């Protein structure tokens, strides 16, 4: 099979591509639902009194929920469409968070994303893309960065 049939949809020109900055308020009801969805039973994650007793000012955002908040945009897959990535062929290859400050219910978080790397393997049958998100809160304080590695499977 020729490489042209496996033609990658991504090339180096994609690196540096920035998504539209996005802000979202953290809702405590969603945090409770998320805790339920992942089976988190620690009352700190669903009971405000327990959260305050543990030193939090409100219900805390759990470690992986920042990824979910970034998907609160009207169309969280808009950048796949814009970059020509077919959603059905996308797999999540990896995810890495670095935390700077806790985030809480009631906070308004700002997400700024950028594509930081692309590469391919197996003659383009597998393509990889890293999207970095930088998260700040309503005070402009750094909350976290997270890197999402996307894998695009092409038929062979």
């Amino acid at each position, binding site marked *: 099979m020729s490489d042209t049939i496996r033609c990658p949809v991504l090339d180096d020109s994609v690196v540096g591509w920035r998504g539209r900055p996005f802000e979202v308020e953290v809702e405590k009801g969603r945090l409770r*639902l998320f805790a339920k969805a992942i089976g988190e039973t620690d009352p700190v994650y669903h009971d405000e009194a327990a959260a305050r007793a543990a030193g939090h000012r409100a219900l805390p955002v759990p470690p992986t929920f920042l990824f*979910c908040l970034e*998907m609160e945009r009207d169309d969280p*897959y808009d950048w796949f469409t814009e970059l020509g990535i077919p*959603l059905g062929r996308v*797999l*999540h290859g990896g*995810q890495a968070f*670095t935390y700077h400050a806790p985030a809480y219910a009631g906070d308004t978080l700002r997400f700024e994303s950028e594509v930081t790397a692309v590469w391919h393997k197996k003659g383009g049958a597998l393509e990889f893309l890293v999207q970095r998100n930088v998260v700040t809160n309503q005070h402009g304080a750094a909350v976290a960065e997270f890197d999402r590695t996307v894998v695009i499977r092409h038929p062979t």
Partner: protein
Amino acid sequence: MSSVTTPRYADVAVGDALPSLDLPPVTRAMLAVYCGASGDHNPVHVDLDFARASGLDDVIAHGMLVMAWTGRVLTGWVPQSAIVSFDTRFLAVTRIGDAITARGEVIEKFVDGERRCVRVAVSAVDQHGETKTSGSAIVALA
């Protein structure tokens, strides 16, 4: 109130296992709830027709659900504020019926400036022993 308190650096050794979590087998209902709670509405996780049209035999679990389970191993061991970083690679898809065990193990102790830290290897393994996710976290101890 959470019963979780930060362990003392001196009391933790390389090779220590964190309390593991045995999760119930993955169901379609579980993925539907996670879909709504997470906001990740990719139909590959809930829509069998879409999954098949995409070349899969069935829907697959959200990788981030499995990562969240391994995150619970961390937050079951230390207060979340102690977690400095947390990364995961998704190595195999998690399917309906898979029963995941989430594990953590201390693999390194180090001092970073004022912080006394450990590196924890985290993983999610199914009932057949297949590793679904593998990653690590840096945790600051007391």
